[in-house]
């Protein structure tokens, strides 16, 4: 039922989706707090975050997963994702540039369905991973 973006026979391990880059701001973090309902003060109250020993407020893990998810669904087409999971490795900080990495790990056929497996990650511009995970999408049959 999803968008037809990928052509199964043209997918190969190592293929990369276009990168998304975003410089994280405090405003981004506050907006995600409001929209997600995650009002943990470590994400919006700099005074409390510093008192708790953090250098500043930091981004929600789910904000990182959301940004990376946008890169994934752009690549595989909305409606085709069957699995998406990540491990939260490092915090994200205001001022950091975040870069998505979506790489084809392989393709497989199960019955009449065709799938692509992806290695996915979000890192800062220094190459430190923030979230690392896997995604799988069904590839609609080509025309």
């Amino acid at each position, binding site marked *: 039922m999803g968008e037809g973006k990928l052509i199964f026979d043209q997918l190969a391990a190592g293929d990369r989706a276009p990168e*998304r880059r975003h410089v994280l701001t405090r405003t981004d973090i506050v907006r995600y707090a409001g929209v997600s309902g995650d009002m943990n003060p470590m994400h919006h109250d700099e005074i409390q975050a510093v008192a708790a020993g953090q250098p500043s407020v930091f981004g929600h893990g789910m904000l990182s997963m959301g940004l990376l998810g*946008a890169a994934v669904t752009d690549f595989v087409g909305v409606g085709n994702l069957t699995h998406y999971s990540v491990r939260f490795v490092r915090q994200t900080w205001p001022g950091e540039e975040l870069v998505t990495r979506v790489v084809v790990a392989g393709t497989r056929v199960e019955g009449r369905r065709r799938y692509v497996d992806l290695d996915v990650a979000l890192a800062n511009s220094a190459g430190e991973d923030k979230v690392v995970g896997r995604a799988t999408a069904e590839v609609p049959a080509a025309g």
Partner: protein
Amino acid sequence: MTAQRPPEGAADKLELESLRGRSVGQSTIVIERGPVEAFAAAVFDENPLYRDPAAASAAGLPGIPVPATFPLAFETWGRRDELQPEGAERFALNEFLDPLVARGALVLHGEQGFDYHAPVFVGQVLDGRSTIVDVYSRESKGRRMDFVVLETAWRDRTTAEPVVTTRMTVIVRF
């Protein structure tokens, strides 16, 4: 501290163990259009499919779809009182975690997973049931970390077909 005392954190560990297999209650939610658009913007996703019914229709979708990680915000926006089944049990994981935080525990979101069984669209009504599916501990550099895994299975209210299952791993560290 004397040798006879139980190791620090033992009582907390027992409390966490008691969570295993526990039902965390149920919610019925409706997917509303405004929150979907706001959520897409908050994760920097400009795709018109999340905003424009005509774009969704042109892409062959029966309605406005939701971003991949939106299921974690289902209950924030769409849990309308009038939709809840009578006598529905509701239990917040935070009721267990907050006292641990008050005793100095650090609670972290360790992992998050989604299994998508069918696409979700604006206007759909979903029933969700949450269960603590696992609790386990690991030692790392002489410190114990406890892991609590919470799974929520969402089904279409009309067809009872599964649409998405979320799996959250929370880390509790003393």
